């Protein structure tokens, strides 16, 4: 039973076949998968979804973080442990590589700020496809090593992401490969919806009042919102009153600026932030991210680099979750929105943690407390402890230890 009717231009509505196409030939609008919702309504049920077989990333009730933020009900959707490459990009690439194989491609490719590079290289290795990965040359080492280990052709471009992206548009045009975020983009982007689907299922088939989402190109927030509306349309949830909030780094915030100015026109910027995974100055889906926020009556915030690092540290200290810079952006943005009263403190909030801190260690390495350096003797340890009463290392007997167990 066909569940996809084909592709359709989001702007002018022109229909296209379900092929590796991504822009409307007439108006250059993005093509999107068009589903047969009447058919889906007959076969998609809560019970069927709950039966799997797909696993999920954790949705954590973040009580410590909620206390720190002065909020009542905070959740972490933790894609820092996404399989296999520790970011939400594994969701979109799973769909994209599957479609690339269906279409008969033997080479997959992407333009990436790092996480996508990891994921495309890994999925290509598993699928026995050749991969060409294009990245800005100044990416974090963890993301470069985390790509090279899968043995792709990694092309480090002397330019920023927007320049890499533009180059890839022309490469895709010439070489005919399956660029997951270019000519396979209509399918790739649909993978992000599963982030929202899982939140709803994990909350017991209800939507949170707020979701804070990091944005670079703007696709994730757009697709989470689409996913929630689909669940509502299919009768899986009674309402869809979630407000979507966009988080960007202050040094690269064209979408936040547009939302703040209530302007549909996204003005490109030249990114300057430690948050390289969100450093896209010319967001492809910026307009649709704006519309998702507008439609859901959401908002936006763009914390500074210092706030981003503080956000990473706060999440680690309160919930034991080490996120990358994009997660720091999300936490810091949520903090601001709560402080400003944009998100009421008594309403449920889900923070989208989309990547793992092990990939961006450089940004926090210099601000963390150094380890205590000692000789391998008790005397040496005792001496350090004696010098540092601030460490609170009082000797306690087991009997008096209130945390025995």
């Amino acid at each position, binding site marked *: 039973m066909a569940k996809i009717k084909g592709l359709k231009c989001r*702007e002018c509505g022109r229909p296209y076949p379900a092929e590796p196409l*991504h*822009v*409307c*030939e*007439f*108006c*250059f*609008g*993005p093509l999107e998968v068009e589903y047969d919702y009447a058919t889906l309504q007959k076969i998609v049920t809560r019970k069927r979804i709950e039966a799997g077989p797909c696993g999920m990333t954790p949705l954590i009730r973040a009580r410590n973080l909620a206390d720190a933020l002065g909020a009542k009900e905070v959740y972490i959707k933790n894609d820092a442990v996404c399989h296999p490459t520790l970011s939400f*990009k594994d969701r979109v690439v799973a769909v994209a590589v599957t479609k690339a194989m269906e279409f008969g491609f033997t080479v997959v490719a992407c*333009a990436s*700020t790092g*996480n*996508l590079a990891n994921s495309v290289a890994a999925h290509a290795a598993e699928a026995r496809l050749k991969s060409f990965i294009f990245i800005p040359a100044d990416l974090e080492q963890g993301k470069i090593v985390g790509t090279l280990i899968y043995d792709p052709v990694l092309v480090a471009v002397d330019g920023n*992401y*927007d*320049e*890499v*992206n*533009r180059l*890839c*548009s*022309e490469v*895709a*045009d010439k070489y005919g490969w399956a*660029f997951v*975020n*270019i000519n396979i*983009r209509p399918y790739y982007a649909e993978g992000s919806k599963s982030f929202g689907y899982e939140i709803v299922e994990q909350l017991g088939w209800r939507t949170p009042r707020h979701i804070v989402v*990091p*944005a*670079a*190109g*703007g*696709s*994730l927030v757009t697709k989470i919102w689409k996913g929630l509306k689909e669940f509502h349309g299919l009768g899986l949830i009674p309402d869809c009153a979630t407000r979507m909030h966009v988080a960007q780094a202050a040094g690269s915030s064209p979408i936040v600026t547009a939302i703040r100015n209530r302007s549909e026109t996204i*003005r*490109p910027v*030249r990114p300057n932030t430690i948050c390289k*995974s*969100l450093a*896209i100055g*010319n*967001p*492809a*889906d910026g*307009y649709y991210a704006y519309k998702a926020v507008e439609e859901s009556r959401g908002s936006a915030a763009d914390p500074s680099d210092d706030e981003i690092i503080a956000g990473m540290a706060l999440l680690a200290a309160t919930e034991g979750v080490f996120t990358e810079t*994009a997660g720091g952006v999300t936490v810091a943005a949520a903090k601001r929105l709560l402080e400003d009263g944009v998100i009421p403190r008594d309403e449920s909030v889900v923070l989208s943690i*989309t990547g793992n801190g092990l990939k961006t260690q450089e940004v926090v390495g210099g601000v963390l407390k150094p380890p205590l350096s000692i000789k391998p003797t008790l005397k040496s340890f005792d001496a350090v402890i004696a010098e540092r009463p601030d460490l609170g290392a009082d000797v306690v007997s087991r009997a008096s230890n209130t945390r025995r167990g």
Partner: protein
Amino acid sequence: MSVLVRIPTPLRTLTNGQAEVHAEGSSIRELIENLEGRYKGLKERLCEGKDIRRFINVYVNEEDIRFLQGTATPLKPGDRVSIVPAIAGGK
């Protein structure tokens, strides 16, 4: 004054399949008018009213014209203009 214009795949049906064409104009606005004279229908595909369509990026020598003077961006002989679909990449 001739500049080289890189044409994306969706517009090549209007340029007889050519990926690059030569056209003239002292600004992007004039260039588009000149392209329309040579390849009828191309302006409608590039523009919505007076503006470049939302999902098209235009570059002069690798620089996005939105960082320059938009459609008033001046051109000089030997410039390269690229027309690139905007929908690609990103999170």
